[in-house]
């Protein structure tokens, strides 16, 4: 293995190793969804595919945006844009825990040396109308993944249940590379002049987006865009609901994703009061639920 592909020395090597591992477990290896989302779960390959009776296995990297977590590039552990590695398997296989542990081994975490633990953490996404039971996976006291058996998504009972794994890639890479500042991560695995760090790739972006998220984003425009996305989502759902089958679940769901991200931006700008917050979350959840129902009337949803 060259340094460029070594998961212990290269951020991209870590990603490629996980891709290879999960490809061998029969997952389709997808590319990131081309929209701004807060977590890998929002990718329709998880949210929508978790619904309905059809078996499904996928793995992908999802860039995730959490506008509020921006720290102007000054915090060694916090980013407003980071990568999640997401695995979804429906129905959840009996040996999912073992597969997960083997994936850790593949990226250089040897269970003989480390203390790996499954610590209770029930997952809930109020905006997606979703919940599941599972754990935070700890490696030597650090949370490196989230492990969830989905019970409900978009307000619909999962039947059968999907298992979801989410790896926080930067944190995992920091651990295997042994660095304490995310910007010091070796991105391409090379040394000397050829070395490219995570900071080389993302530091400027973190600074600029932190300014954008906290100071500059036009809140009136964001609020209007939220309303637009909400209205468009409903309009598309109506448009696609003309026959037995629903014809527009995916485009409608895109608008739900948009609304969710706009809400996160408004939240970061600090213009949402506590009660308004509840109402925004409720409105996004209603969109997610309607999209989930529409999905169940499509071929992918098993109709």
């Amino acid at each position: 293995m060259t340094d460029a592909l070594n998961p212990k020395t290269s951020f991209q090597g870590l990603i490629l190793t996980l891709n290879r591992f999960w490809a061998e477990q029969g997952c389709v290896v997808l590319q990131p969804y081309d929209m701004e989302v807060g977590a890998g779960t929002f990718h329709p390959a998880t949210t929508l595919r978790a619904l309905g009776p059809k078996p499904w296995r996928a793995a992908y990297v999802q860039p995730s945006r959490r506008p509020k977590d921006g720290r102007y590039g000054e915090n060694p552990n916090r980013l407003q844009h980071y990568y999640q590695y997401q695995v979804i398997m429906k129905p959840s296989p009996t040996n999912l825990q073992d597969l997960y542990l083997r994936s850790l081994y593949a990226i250089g975490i040897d269970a003989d040396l480390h203390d790996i633990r499954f610590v209770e953490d029930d997952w809930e996404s109020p905006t997606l109308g979703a919940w599941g039971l599972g754990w935070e996976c700890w490696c030597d006291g650090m949370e490196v993944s989230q492990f969830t058996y989905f019970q409900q998504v978009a307000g619909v009972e999962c039947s059968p249940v999907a298992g979801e794994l989410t790896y926080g890639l930067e944190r995992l890479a920091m651990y295997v590379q042994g660095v304490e500042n995310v910007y010091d991560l070796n991105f391409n695995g090379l040394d000397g002049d050829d070395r490219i760090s995570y900071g080389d790739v993302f530091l400027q972006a973190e600074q600029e987006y932190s300014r954008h998220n906290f100071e500059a984003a036009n809140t009136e425009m964001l609020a209007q865009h939220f309303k637009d996305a909400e209205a468009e989502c409903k309009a598309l759902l109506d448009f696609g609901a003309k026959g037995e089958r629903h014809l527009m679940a995916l485009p409608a769901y895109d608008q739900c994703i948009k609304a969710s991200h706009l809400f996160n931006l408004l939240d970061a700008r600090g213009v949402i009061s506590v009660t308004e917050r509840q109402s925004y979350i409720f409105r996004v959840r209603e969109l997610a639920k309607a999209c989930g129902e529409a999905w169940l009337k499509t071929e992918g949803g098993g109709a």
Partner: protein
Amino acid sequence: MPDLLLELFSEEIPARMQRRAAEDLKSAVTNALVERGCTYEAALAFATPRRLALHIVGLPARQPDLREEKKGPRVGAPQQAIDGFLKGAGLSDLSQATIQSDPKKGDFYIAIVERKGSATQDVIAEIMPEIIKTFPWPKSMRWGKLSGEPNALRWVRPLHSIICTFGSETETPEIVPFEIDGIKAGDITYGHRFLAPGPIHVRRFDDYVSKLEAAKVVLSTDRRKDIILHDAKSLAFAQGLELIEDDALLEEVAGLVEWPTVLMGSFEERFLDIPPEVIRATIRANQKCFVLRKAGSNTLANKFLLTSNMIAKDDGATIISGNEKVVRARLSDAKFFWETDLKVKLEDRLEKLKSITFHAKLGTQHQRVERLIALAKELAPLVKADVRKAERAARLCKADLVSEMVGEFPEVQGLMGRYYAQRQGEDASVAIALEDHYKPQGPSDRIPTNPVAIAVALADKIDTLVGFWAIDEKPTGSKDPYALRRAALGVIRIILENTIGLPLLQHHINADLLAFFHERLKVYLRDKGARHDLIDAVLGIDAGNDDLLLVVKRVEALDAFLSTDDGKNLLAGFRRAANILKAEEKKDGVIYQSTFDASLLKEPQEKVLGDILSVATRHAADHVMRQDFAGAMRELASLRPAVDAFFEAILVNAEDAATRKNRLALLAAFREATRTVADFSAIAG
């Protein structure tokens, strides 16, 4: 006598649920067995992160035989009745029934049904699937292929295998055959996830425990706790340190490991500048590690103890360094927050409170602080607090909400306010008030005792209650999202435990909210053992019942009074008067008022009562004014001979209508007199 071994092996069970689940399993299985006639000698239940286990000792090999007599119809009854009887008793014809003679009812049929007891093993096989399917987990889930089926098995996390063996010590126990959602009961378990993951064949409890131990699983939670505590203490001792014990953390940590291995890590000395509570909260909440202090002192050491689940190849060096890295990152955050926060004075943070909504209908935190200032100033004299200090404390009490530290660790709100106040040289009682005004947080939390803290704590809770009452967000049923019951209980405890007289109606509280306080007071006093009816009797008198301290004093005085002869007899006299009044008032359709005409009183016994009644009532009222309830009761007790004599000699329902009316008015006056201390009609017994 045979024993039962049961193990339910699953993916990791949340630590907080394990102990309860083991007990639930024990009671579910033993109850079901006993219901079916299978009694036992002893039962023990266990839990680890991956298994629930149950050992039942001394079960019978068979269920006892059952003999039941079923009574049938009389001989010669219609065929329909006879057929029904035969069917119900499971007989094919009448020759299988016996005939019994009864001297009154004549001859009738009787069926004797004898059922052979089943083998206990079969009973177990029959009850287990239902017990597993209906297990009372606080939260359970579906998983895997079968999760799409209706009535799919639910468990706390995926269930993988079941051991169920039954047999006596002298024989090889047998597997109790049952199956649930494709999982067949067997005699195989698995050891530690990493140290001994292979299958283990077990026979009964004895070899189960020892084989698990050999496979690096300590079955008993209490033994795991002992190991952790013992190892933690000796590791600490070796370094000249003392473990800061934490039972809740110990219980949780014991539920996270099957093979506890305690390791010591350290962090840089420079982090010790951070308040020790913050260090402890960070390390405890995020890392589930124990902190240490230097032996014989209160100073925190720069060490922590982690409990791993591994015997690592490198003796834990990697594990320790990984944990240290996380602790360091957490403490770096905390230190950064602490130092950043110290650069800003608390009063300079107030402006920021304007951007925080307390509740959409109740304004911002800044507006709330303005209300707290006014209320704390108003309450300060009543609780003997310095008004200026109370004002200052109220002004600063929410400032730490916008500090970095509280933003990150909400659980240290208040505490950080105190630290920042001390650092910026605030008065000591102001600093204390910033922390203590949130107290008590629950029935077992300590209450503030510093007068300034009391003033702000009361203001904080009363403002919350008055506010949510005003916007009609009262608790309903089990829903109390703003913890208003806790706030009311807080006010009650602060008032009573600090003996503060506070007439609530004079401090923004309306009658409806007062009724809520009364409800909480009743719950509080009942828990303390006070008589429910006496509380009602005291609360039944409107005057003064908004001063909760007085209410309690009255209840105590009433309780003492009613245990004396005078008290009992006066109560008897009251009841007699009240009953007569009730009957006559119903008859006449009026409520008699206490305005009797002294000139119409003719008989000596009624004259005496009339004379002393007005005197005693006035005196009792004077005592009540001075809050001397025992004195007021003594006054009422002085009525007793006159009341007794009245009932002895006087016919209330006199022929002359005017006399009758006047006597009823006299009784009404007596009834009214008792109301100076309590509503006697609420007293039970």
